[in-house]
C-alpha cells in the first residue's frame, strides 16, 4: 500500500497544473486559437478561390503543404518509435518523458493528415477515397496505413493513461468539478491496481509497444514510397524508405527535447526531467543525425558522381539557387547535434535544446529540398513565360496554414497537459520502487557477503514486490 500512497503524493504535486488556470495560460490559448482561426479563414479562402491563391502551379504541384505533412507525420512516428522502444527495452530513465513522447505521437498524427487534405483540389470528393479505392495507388496504402497507425497509437496512449486516470479518480485532494472526476472515473475502466490487472496492462502495453514500432516503420516507409514510386529524378530512390524513417525519428527526437525543455520550465519539473534525460534523448538525436547524414550523403553522392543529366540538373539547382538552404539543412542540421553531444563539455540542457531546435528546422528544410527542387527540374524542360510557373514560392496563405498547424499542435498539447499530468505518475512511482528494490537487493548481497542473516528481510521485500 506504500506504493499507492507514494503515487497519490506524487499526483498531488501535479494537481495544481490541472486545477488552476492562470492568466498567462488564457492569453497563450487565445493567441493559439487566433492563429488557428486565421488558418481556417485562409483555408476557406483557398476553397472559395481555388488553389490559384497558393504558390503551387503545374510544375511544382506540391509545396509546403506536403512538406508539413511529411514533417508532422515524421514527428508522430518518432514519438511512437522513441516511446515504444524505450518501453520495450526497459530504459530505466524513460518514465518522466514517456508521456511527452506519446502525446507528441498522437497530436502530430492528428495534424499531419490535415495537410495532405490541403493539397487536394476537391475536398468535397474526399469520400471517393473510400468509395472507389484502388489498391495500386500508394495514396490508398497511405490511407490504410495512417488509419491503422492512428488506432494503434490511440490504444497505446490510452493504455498508458489508464493507471493515472484511476489515480485521479481515487484522489481525495483533487479539486476539480464533479463532471471531470466522473470522466476520469469512466476512462479508468474500473482499474483497481490489483495484481492481475497490473499484469494484464503490462503485457498489453508490451505487445502494443512492439507493434507500434513496426507500424511506425511501415507507415513512414509507405509515405516515402509516395515519392519514390514516381520516376522523378530526385525521388526515384531505393533508400527513400529507410531514409525517411531515420529522418522522422531524428526530427521527432528533436521535438521531444524541445517539449521536455518547455515543460521543465513551465511546470518546474527539474526534479523529474533531469540533465540525464536531456543527455539520453540527446544521444538518440546524435546517433540519428549520424545516420541521417550518412543517408543524405550517399543519396546525393551517387546522384552527383554518376551525374545523369537530370540528376545533374537537380544537383545544380540545389547548389546554386538553394545553396544556403542546402548548407543549413544538410550540414548545420546534422553536424551541430554531433558536435554538441559528442563533446561532453558542450552538453548542457540549453545547448542540447538549441541543437534540437536547429535539427528540427533543418529537417523541415530538408523535406522542402526533397519536394520542391525536384518538381522544378522535370524531365521535360519548363518552357513557360510565367515566372510563378517556373519557380515555386509559398504564398501567405500557405504560411498561415503552416503556422496554423503548429499552433494547433501547441494548443492540443496545452489542453492535454490540462487533462492529465504531463509526467506519468504511476510509471514513475513504479520505477522509483523498482529502483529502491534494486538498491535493497544490492544491500542484501552485500550483507550476505558480510555474513549477516537477512532472510526475514528478503521475504518482506518479496511480498511487496509481488504487489
Amino acid at each position: 500500500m506504500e506504493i499507492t500512497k507514494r503515487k497519490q503524493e506524487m499526483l498531488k504535486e501535479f494537481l495544481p497544473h490541472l486545477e488552476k488556470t492562470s492568466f498567462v495560460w488564457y492569453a497563450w490559448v487565445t493567441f493559439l486559437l487566433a492563429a488557428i482561426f486565421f488558418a481556417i479563414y485562409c483555408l476557406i479562402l483557398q476553397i472559395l478561390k481555388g488553389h490559384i491563391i497558393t504558390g503551387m502551379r503545374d510544375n511544382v504541384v506540391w509545396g509546403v503543404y506536403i512538406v508539413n505533412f511529411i514533417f508532422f507525420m515524421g514527428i508522430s512516428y518518432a514519438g511512437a518509435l522513441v516511446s515504444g522502444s524505450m518501453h520495450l527495452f526497459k530504459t530505466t530513465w524513460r518514465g518522466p518523458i514517456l508521456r511527452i513522447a506519446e502525446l507528441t505521437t498522437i497530436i502530430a498524427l492528428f495534424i499531419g493528415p490535415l495537410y495532405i487534405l490541403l493539397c487536394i483540389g476537391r475536398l468535397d470528393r474526399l469520400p471517393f477515397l473510400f468509395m472507389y479505392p484502388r489498391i495500386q495507388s500508394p495514396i490508398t496504402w497511405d490511407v490504410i496505413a495512417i488509419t491503422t497507425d492512428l488506432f494503434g497509437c490511440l490504444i497505446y496512449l490510452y493504455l498508458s493513461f489508464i493507471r493515472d486516470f484511476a489515480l485521479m479518480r481515487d484522489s481525495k485532494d483533487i479539486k476539480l468539478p464533479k463532471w471531470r472526476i466522473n470522466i476520469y472515473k469512466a476512462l479508468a475502466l474500473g482499474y483497481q491496481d490489483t495484481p492481475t490487472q497490473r499484469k494484464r496492462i503490462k503485457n498489453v502495453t508490451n505487445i502494443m509497444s512492439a507493434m507500434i514500432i513496426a507500424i511506425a516503420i511501415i507507415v513512414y516507409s509507405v509515405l516515402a514510397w509516395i515519392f519514390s514510386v514516381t520516376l522523378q529524378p530526385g525521388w526515384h530512390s531505393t533508400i527513400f524508405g529507410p531514409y525517411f524513417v531515420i529522418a522522422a525519428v531524428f526530427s521527432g527526437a528533436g521535438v521531444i527535447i524541445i517539449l521536455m525543455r518547455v515543460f521543465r520550465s513551465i511546470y518546474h519539473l527539474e526534479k523529474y526531467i533531469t540533465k540525464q534525460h536531456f543527455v539520453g534523448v540527446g544521444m538518440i538525436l546524435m546517433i540519428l543525425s549520424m545516420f541521417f547524414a550518412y543517408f543524405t550523403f550517399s543519396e546525393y553522392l551517387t546522384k552527383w558522381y554518376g551525374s545523369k543529366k537530370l540528376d545533374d540538373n537537380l544537383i545544380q539547382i540545389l547548389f546554386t539557387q538553394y545553396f544556403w538552404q542546402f548548407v543549413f539543412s544538410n550540414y548545420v542540421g546534422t553536424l551541430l547535434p554531433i558536435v554538441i553531444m559528442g563533446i561532453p563539455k558542450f552538453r548542457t540542457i540549453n545547448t542540447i535544446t538549441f541543437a534540437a531546435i536547429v535539427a528540427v528546422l533543418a529537417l523541415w528544410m530538408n523535406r522542402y529540398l526533397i519536394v520542391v527542387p525536384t518538381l522544378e527540374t522535370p524531365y521535360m524542360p519548363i518552357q513557360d513565360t510565367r515566372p510563378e510557373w517556373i519557380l515555386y514560392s509559398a504564398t501567405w496563405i500557405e504560411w498561415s496554414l503552416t503556422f496554423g498547424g503548429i499552433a494547433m499542435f501547441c494548443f492540443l498539447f496545452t489542453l492535454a497537459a490540462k487533462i492529465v499530468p504531463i509526467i506519468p505518475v504511476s510509471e514513475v512511482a513504479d520505477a522509483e520502487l523498482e529502483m529502491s528494490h534494486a538498491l535493497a537487493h544490492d544491500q542484501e548481497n552485500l550483507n550476505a557477503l558480510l555474513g549477516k542473516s537477512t532472510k526475514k528481510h528478503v521475504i518482506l521485500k518479496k511480498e511487496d514486490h509481488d504487489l
Partner: protein
Amino acid sequence: MDESQNDKKNNRRKFLRVSFLTGLSVVAAKTVFADIPVDPENETGEMITLLSPDGKLVKVAKEKINYMEKYISPEASRQGIPHRKFVMVIDLAKCKNARVCVEKCQKAHHLPPQQEFMKIYLMQESEESAPYWMPKPCFHCDKPLCVSVCPVGATYKRTDGIVLIDNERCIGCKFCMTGCPYSARQFNWADSPYLHVDQPYSPETSVPGKEGTVSKCDFCPDMIRDGKMPHCVTGCPMGVIYFGDQLEDIVTNGDETIRFSELIASRSGYRHLEDLGTKPSVYYLPPVNRQFPVDRGFDHPDEINQRYKDVPYVKKMHKD
C-alpha cells in the same frame, strides 16, 4: 432519369462495342444500327423501319439500333472503341512551330491562352547538337504511371490505348501530375469563364473543365467516333502529325496515308524517353532532312519566343 433516357443509355453502351467507322447514318434521330450480337433475353422481336443512306427503307430489330449521339457519359467513356489501338506519329523534320495545332486544340477544348494540352518544346540535346521543334501531346502510354498512382480510378487506360480523365471522379490530389514524367497533365487552378461551357461533360471531350481537377490531351475520341482526326492533326498546315490505328497498321496526316510500321521502320521512328519504360503511343520521326530551318519557328509574339530563352541555341543567337 426516365425510362426513355435509360433506354438510350443502354443503347449507347451497345454502340461502344461497335467499330467507329462501321455503321450507317440514318434518319432524323441520328441513329445508327450495327451488326452486334443481341442479348437474347432482351429480344422482343419488334422491328423498326429506317431509311438507309442509299435511300432504301430497311427493317431492323429494335434491339439492334444504337442511337448515335455525340455524348458519351463518363461511365461509358471507360470502354475503348473496340478493335482499335490509336497511335500518333510526329514528324519532327516538318515542324516549324507554326502553333496551329496548339491553337486548334485550345479552341476545341476551351482552354485559356496559357493552358496547352499540346505543347511545343524547343529541344536541344546538348550544346553541339541541332535544335528542333517538338510538339508534345499526352503520350497515352501503354504503361501509364498516372493511372497506377490514381487513388480513385479517375484516370484510366482504355482498350483502344487512350488514357482519359474523368473530372467528375478526380479528387485533385495531383499525384498523377508528379507521376507523369512528360509533364502532360495540368491542374485547373481557379475557376474561369473557360470552364463554363453549356454542354454536358464527357471525358471524351474534356469539356467543360472543372476547377480543382486535372486535365490533359485526350486524343479527341469524340472526333474519332465521328470518323475525323484529332484537332491537332487536321490543324497542322505542314502535315507534321500522323494519327491512326496500330492494329490496322495505318496512319494519316490528312494528306497521305501510310503504313505505320513502314513509316517507323523507314524513318527510324522512336519514342521519347523510351528508357523510362512507360511505352508511349506517340512516336517521333527524327528531325533529319528538314523542310524548314529552326529559326522559322520564332515568327511569334515575344511572349511565346521568350519561352525558349534558356535553350543554349537561343542564348547564343541573342549574343550574336
